[in-house]
């Protein structure tokens, strides 16, 4: 029996392209992560899992994971929540909403590295608008708040350069920058909900906004939410430019803002330690992979309304 080989010609080109531009680079990174290769060196020693051992034992990398996860687990829920809130508000506003849509989307379009300069200015301890505003509040009822009173007594924090505040300040800017993107995705999701479902909910006795949200909006946004959360995770894991702009040297006060992407850049590019840089990359890819798998599982299990 002769079998046609035509199928190879159909899948062949796509397969070859995928191997060349996706799989080979990942394989190379994985290979490099097992060596102590430096760019320019003619050869490299095979060091086994030593690079990975470093990543999971040394305190620098512990800080790296700490900073990354803090950033990710603050920024993701808040950008998703604010994105949904803003989208629902704009959706209910109708025409005027377009103005808000543009405003909220501006930070997404603006280069974060340029915006970082503005924020650096705003958070400046002496000439910055943030602390100047906070000082205005001194002597008022706000002083009942111990933290506030302390700020008035001495000075308000060095938002970007205090190791207790830096990561949260950076997270705040990340939220400011990122929620507009989620908002746009949610707006698309909201627009695609058939209005007749809200009519049906009303006839069924869903009287409060919360009832309608629970019965129609939230479930109908399920697929959007899974996508938004995955995208947000990947985007926040990839945060780099802001850290590079604020802290070109060393990842912030006591490395408290030493996020993964910055670590890869510092090790692999600045210090030319390709092996360890590649190892961090592989760990990063593993995280992204896990997230994607979780997303697929959700899409297939929960939100697929066949």
């Amino acid at each position: 029996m002769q079998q046609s080989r035509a199928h190879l010609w159909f899948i062949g080109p796509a397969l070859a392209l995928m191997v060349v531009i996706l799989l080979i680079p990942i394989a190379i990174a994985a290979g490099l992560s097992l060596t102590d290769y430096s760019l320019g060196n003619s050869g490299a020693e095979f060091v086994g899992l030593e690079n990975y051992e470093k990543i999971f034992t040394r305190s620098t990398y512990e800080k790296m994971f700490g900073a990354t996860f803090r950033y990710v687990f603050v920024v993701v829920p808040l950008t998703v929540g604010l994105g949904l809130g803003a989208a629902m508000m704009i959706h209910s506003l109708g025409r005027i909403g377009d103005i808000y849509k543009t405003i909220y989307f501006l930070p997404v379009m603006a280069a974060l590295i340029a915006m970082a300069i503005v924020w650096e200015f705003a958070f400046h301890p002496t000439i910055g608008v943030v602390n100047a505003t906070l000082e205005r509040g001194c002597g008022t009822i706000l002083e009942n708040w111990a933290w506030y009173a302390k700020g008035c007594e001495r000075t308000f924090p060095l938002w970007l350069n205090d190791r207790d505040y830096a990561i949260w300040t950076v997270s705040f800017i990340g939220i400011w920058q990122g929620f507009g993107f989620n908002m746009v995705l949610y707006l698309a999701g909201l627009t695609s909900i058939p209005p007749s479902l809200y009519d049906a909910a009303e006839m069924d006795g869903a009287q409060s906004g919360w009832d309608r949200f629970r019965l129609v909006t939230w479930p109908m946004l399920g697929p959007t939410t899974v996508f938004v959360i995955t995208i947000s995770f990947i985007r926040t894991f990839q945060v780099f430019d802001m850290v590079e702009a604020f802290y070109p040297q060393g990842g912030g006060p006591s490395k408290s803002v030493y996020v993964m992407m910055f670590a890869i850049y510092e090790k692999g590019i600045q210090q030319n330690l390709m092996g360890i840089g590649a190892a961090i990359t592989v760990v990063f890819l593993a995280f992204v992979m896990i997230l994607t798998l979780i997303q697929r599982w959700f899409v297939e299990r929960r939100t697929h309304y066949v």
Partner: protein
Amino acid sequence: MSKISLQSIEKSFGETPVLKQVSLDIEEGEFVTLVGPSGCGKSTLLRILSGLEQADAGRVSIGGMNVTDVRPAERNLAMVFQSYALYPHLSVADNMMTPLRMRDLPMWGRLPMIGPLLARDTYRVMQGQVREVAETLKITPLLDRKPGQLSGGQRQRVALGRAMVRQPVAFLMDEPLSNLDAALRVHMRAELSELHRRLKTTFVYVTHDQAEALTMSDRMAVMMHGNILQVGPPDEIYANPNCLEVARFIGSPAINTFAAEIQSDGHLALIGTTLSLVQPLTRAPVTVGIRPEHLFLSPTGRFQGHVRYRENLGSDVFLHLDVEGAQQPVVLRANPAQAAQVTLRNRVCFDLEPDKVLLFQSTGERLPCALATREVA
């Protein structure tokens, strides 16, 4: 007791008036159909009755109570939507239980997961109600499926089931059958009538299909460009339309119309023939309407035409005739035996049943006058 009454309802979308002073009274337990061409404002009127849309002026009352400003949820009406509007993430059983959950359970009982545990007794009662309705509609095997896994007809039943689980004052249906295939549509007509007989609840049914209106309703209201033109039992509207528009809209194939004239001697001149009237009228141009089944082939017929097309429906054959002096082809109903003797493009003679002829003024209003059944030669 639960009489529904719409009084002088007005509604515009922007500059466009959609409903102009529409009034309609619906008795308890009646099956009333709003029928009219697309865009005439039927859905808008139904949505105003349900409360989903707010009227610009007028009054809606249910059971003698003014509900014009009452929320839809509190009017205790149930609605079946054209698109069914089932919740795609809920199973059929949960879809049907939603109206009960929203009304009969307190906030804490509606919580996911723990709600069913906290309000276990209520849930059991509600599940019983759902199962009972599912039994009636023969959808019990579908209870665990999601709407996406159902055919159009099954979804339609589920939507009906969701409306039926609680005892509403009235069922409002907006073209519920228009997404079904032809055979199922005819079947569901009978089933809806049967359901109405059994439930004895008021049905307000919107459709653009005059056949649905004729087959199902106790009374029908013919709507056109934002007005209700005529309200009455289907037979009466069919036999006695009060204006030309209603006559043209109801009945398929449509009624034949001819431009004619009442002559100075009080006779009617119709495509070359003179007919006498029961009582003479003053001279005026009129429109004559006669339904295809009131024309018949007859060798001694006073009219003649050429057969241009035979529309064979099996039980009946509609002959389309080119008649000199008539603007459009004249449609005539013949039985298959007669029609078999007719060949295309041949000349046939036909006549009309004079007592069935309808006369309309040039403005479209009905003239209360009939033809004399016997010609005074």
